[in-house]
């Protein structure tokens, strides 16, 4: 085995690991509402979502090989790696990708531990940006595009993140309001039963769209690494094993279910009734599909959260826990910089150890250590399919306010 192939193997394994966290982090986007309203039993919901993600991932024939171009400059516009990074058998590029992926995974796991639905694509982009800044300097990042189209960190990441939750929220609020107006006078039990079916259908659509959107990002990253290492040459297609393994990784992750996040989205934000669930998931599905049709990149997580909030706003008398929403927004704001910091740190560690197999292995071991630590921490207060729907308690006592301070 050459030095390059050792790092390449690490990149592939880490990328699949990221895909896996992407899966369980985002189960909630599609299924949290159906689980909260008991339209589906928790285990059935994650199984259905996993299956649809698998199908969706296989349907993404169109390859996102240029996925990193939106934020960093390590690829040419046709998808091949930049020539300057290919010295030493491509290890320079591989180390950047590896460090970026590790940054993304670490942030995904941390937010999962805290039960916060943060965006997996932001985590990935953040990690890549951090590793690129560390490796190539600030000019290696595509901050603002070239002005010809929506591009760069600002255009592809920040602006959509600001706008998409608001759009989804408005759509879901309008849908919820309409549904409650239209079905006024129909017996509650009758409506709930009918809306359950609508909820299952719309949630399935979100799962399918998620599989097609998110799995291909990892497929693109792995193929980029293969090209850099000289194991693949065609920038317009991807090896079948890459597609199959990415599809399986995201489906398995989805099936595992990020129960902590499902709980926050399904029970923490809004107490959801079946009509709201239908409105929220339909809004998510419509906004995700419409944006990908228009090439408007966005995060499924931001859309789903905005939709669920909107379904709370649109129902007269519903209670929205703005405090929980505030924590989420805070997590969104720091996702990109935090993942970037982790990515940069990983690159420096790998670089200090020579940037070769030793550096790659060190980064990988650090990842394993962090993942294990967070997993063990999560076992102290486990959330699983048994207790995911327990009553949400605003357990935390109100913060102490010093006497005399006006609230």
């Amino acid at each position, binding site marked *: 085995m050459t030095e390059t192939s050792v790092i390449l193997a690490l990149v592939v394994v880490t990328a699949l690991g990221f895909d896996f966290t992407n899966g369980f982090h985002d189960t909630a986007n599609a299924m949290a509402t159906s689980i909260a309203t008991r339209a589906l039993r928790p285990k059935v919901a994650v199984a259905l979502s996993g299956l649809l993600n698998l199908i*969706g991932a296989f*349907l*993404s*024939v*169109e390859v996102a090989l240029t996925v990193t171009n939106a934020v960093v400059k390590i690829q040419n516009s046709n998808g091949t790696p930049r020539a300057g990074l290919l010295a030493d058998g491509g290890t320079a590029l591989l180390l950047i990708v590896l460090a970026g992926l590790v940054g993304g995974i670490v942030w995904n796991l941390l937010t999962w531990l805290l039960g916060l639905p943060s965006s997996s694509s932001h985590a990935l982009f953040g990690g890549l940006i951090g590793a690129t800044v560390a490796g190539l300097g600030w000019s290696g990042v595509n901050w*603002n*595009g070239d*002005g010809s*189209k*929506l*591009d*760069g960190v*600002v*255009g592809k990441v920040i*602006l*959509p993140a600001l*706008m*998409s939750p608001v*759009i*989804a929220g*408005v*759509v*879901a609020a*309008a*849908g919820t309001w*309409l*549904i409650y107006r*239209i*079905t006024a*006078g*129909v*017996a509650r039990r*009758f*409506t709930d039963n*009918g*809306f359950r079916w*609508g909820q299952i*259908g*719309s949630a399935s*659509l979100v799962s*399918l*769209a998620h599989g*097609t959107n998110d799995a291909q990002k990892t497929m693109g990253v792995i193929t980029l690494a293969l090209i850099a290492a000289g194991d693949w040459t065609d920038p317009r297609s991807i090896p079948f094993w890459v597609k199959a393994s990415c599809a399986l990784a995201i489906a398995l992750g989805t099936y595992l279910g990020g129960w902590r996040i499902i709980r926050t989205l399904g029970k923490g934000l809004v107490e959801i009734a079946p*009509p709201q669930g*239908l*409105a929220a998931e*339909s*809004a*998510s*599905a*419509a*906004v995700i*599909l*419409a*944006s*990908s*049709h*228009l*090439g*408007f990149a966005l995060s499924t997580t931001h859309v789903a959260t905005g939709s669920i909030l909107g379904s709370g706003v649109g129902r007269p008398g519903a209670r929205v826990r703005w405090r929980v929403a505030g924590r989420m927004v805070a997590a969104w704001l720091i996702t990109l910089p935090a993942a970037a910091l982790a990515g940069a740190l990983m690159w420096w560690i790998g670089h200090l150890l020579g940037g070769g197999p030793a550096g790659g292995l060190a980064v990988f071991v650090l990842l394993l250590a962090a993942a294990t630590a967070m997993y063990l921490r999560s076992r102290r207060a486990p959330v699983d399919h048994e207790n995911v729907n327990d009553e949400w308690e605003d357990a935390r006592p109100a913060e102490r306010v010093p006497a005399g301070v006006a609230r």
Partner: protein
Amino acid sequence: MHNLGFALEGAWQVLAAGLLLGAGLPALFGLGIRALAYGAGGDAEEHAAGVRGPAAHRLGTVAAWLLFALVLAGVALGITFIVASGFGKTLSFAHLVPTLVDK
């Protein structure tokens, strides 16, 4: 600031499509439920306690299933779109009737 312009341009289109499909279809579905309850009569509709509910109306049931079929057609369109974009095709609404065209 060119990015802001592009983003706003995309945003209102997404909002329009989202409202039409993401709020419109659920509203149709709600209308279907409403019609179904009108069709079923009795306890499906709220009525004063102690009296018999309104009578059943065949028309309501028919209307309900028509509405559900319409919603299903909308969802089918959504799935077609997902699958088509995976194969390098896209849905065109240029002639009102959705058709598959190359990207």
